[in-house]
């Protein structure tokens, strides 16, 4: 559904000597995302997740590389490709002069939806994100979490077939977050392709069929959450060393238990999770 080939984005910026230099935000990214898949993009701050999404949504022109939707290159087909996509940006970007309802209406009109269809859909989505009462409120009057919910509702109005979510559940309370997860699963069942970024590892673990881990613009791992954990060792022994918390990974519970016995003291044993993988891949190996 989405194919990305050797995608590169370089930005100019001023370094500390005030010289203009190039920084590579995304460095030769190649990905292939299936239709109806929920795909996660993980990586530390500044890894290039947002830049990748901006290139995929045609907000930023790649320095080099190609992007295909359904085997059609998006370059030169921008208008028809934009019809397919829905975008939840990392930052809140409502029109501050319009009300909640008007913001959604503007979006629907920009996607060429007919009057009846657009009103039905707006009503339905506002009810879903529990903002129906606020339809005539100015967007400035919403709380942070309400804005996030509205952002998600807006992206869905025109029934996109590919949905991009850049940290969609930041600042949402646990109940709402779970509802959004349920919504994303439902969309995937309807064959919508979902690409999301998140810093909540639990979210990626429960939601994503596959995750890609980016670091400094490079793809450093791509697999299912389970496979990642298995490769690293299914069990983790965790203990307090002199200056930091230490981790070791083991393939079997037996080995882990033996190691723990050796250590003694306050060590504990648990199943490895994606967070361990993330820290291992992006933190330690790079030596931070």
């Amino acid at each position, binding site marked *: 559904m989405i194919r990305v080939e050797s995608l590169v984005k370089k930005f100019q910026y001023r370094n500390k000597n005030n010289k203009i230099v190039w920084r590579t935000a995304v460095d030769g990214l190649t990905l292939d995302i299936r239709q109806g898949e929920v795909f996660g993009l993980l990586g530390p701050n500044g890894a290039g997740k947002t830049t990748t999404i901006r290139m995929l949504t*045609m*907000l930023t*022109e790649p320095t080099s590389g190609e992007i295909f939707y359904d085997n059609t290159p998006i370059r030169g087909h921008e208008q*028809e490709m934009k019809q397919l996509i829905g975008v939840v940006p990392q930052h809140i*970007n409502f*029109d*501050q*002069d319009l009300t909640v309802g008007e913001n959604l209406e503007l979006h629907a*009109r920009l996607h060429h939806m007919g009057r009846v269809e657009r009103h039905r859909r707006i009503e339905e989505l506002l009810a879903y994100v529990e903002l129906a009462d606020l339809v005539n409120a100015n967007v400035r009057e919403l709380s942070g979490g309400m804005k996030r919910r509205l952002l998600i509702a807006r992206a869905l109005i025109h029934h996109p077939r590919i949905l991009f979510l850049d940290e969609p559940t930041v600042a949402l309370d646990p109940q709402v977050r779970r509802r959004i997860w349920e919504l994303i699963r439902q969309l995937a069942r309807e064959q919508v392709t979902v690409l999301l970024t998140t810093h909540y590892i639990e979210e990626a673990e429960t939601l994503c069929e596959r995750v890609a881990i980016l670091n400094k613009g490079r793809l450093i791992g791509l697999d299912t959450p389970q496979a990642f954990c298995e490769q690293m060792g299914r069990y983790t022994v965790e203990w307090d060393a002199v200056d930091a918390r230490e981790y070791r990974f083991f393939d079997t519970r037996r080995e882990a238990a033996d190691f723990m016995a050796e250590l003694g003291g306050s060590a504990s044993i648990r199943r490895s999770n994606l967070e361990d993988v993330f820290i291992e891949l992006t933190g330690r190996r790079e030596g931070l």
Partner: protein
Amino acid sequence: MLYDIWTVFWRDWLVLKRRMPRFILSRMVAPMLYLVAFGWGLGRSIQVIGGSYIDFLVPGILALNSMNISFNSVTPVHAERIYHKSLEEYLVAPICPYSVVIGKVLAAVLRGLISSSIIVVLAWLFGAHFIITPLFLLVLILNCVIFAEIGFFAAMTIASFEEMGQVNTYILLPMSFLCGTFFSTGTLPDAVRWFIELLPLTHTSYLLRGISSGADIALSSVLVLVFYSLLCFFFSSRVFLRLSK
């Protein structure tokens, strides 16, 4: 494409409609001051060829006011681009990019025309004499289009709101006073005059004044305005198309 232009225009119309009373009231202040200070105050003692100074003044005020209003109607797009980032909504939508430029410019023309009608009513109350013809309207619209496009260009290229103030101070304000609005450019030194006669606002002032007093006008000036509006459209679309680079 037409529908997209309408959508962009519709958004500005919604906002304007909500602020209409405030908009009209605030637009009355500056022209009133001009009419009182230069029309009543100074004007009583000035005689210009072919009539009273206030008749001379009104087309100039219309020209400079429509310039300022249409320019400043588009500059909030700067905030939509930099601070609220709501311009991204248009960039991810399956619309023709030109329709954003055209829709915004048309909305600015509407504002320019509303404030122009306020001046026409005020001037009439002040006892000025002038004729309004279709060509007069066309010139006024062209003037709004040109400066709305320049405003759009500024909104797309300028980095901070402070710089927008500088554009107003260093470009629009001098033009407001010098481009044949309050006095005829004939009295200026040649070099200055040539430069000023290149500017679109000068052509607008002369055309409006000529038409409103029933005198002969230079049709070439209309062509100059058409040329400027096409040129400015080219540049403002270009910066908009380049936003995603």
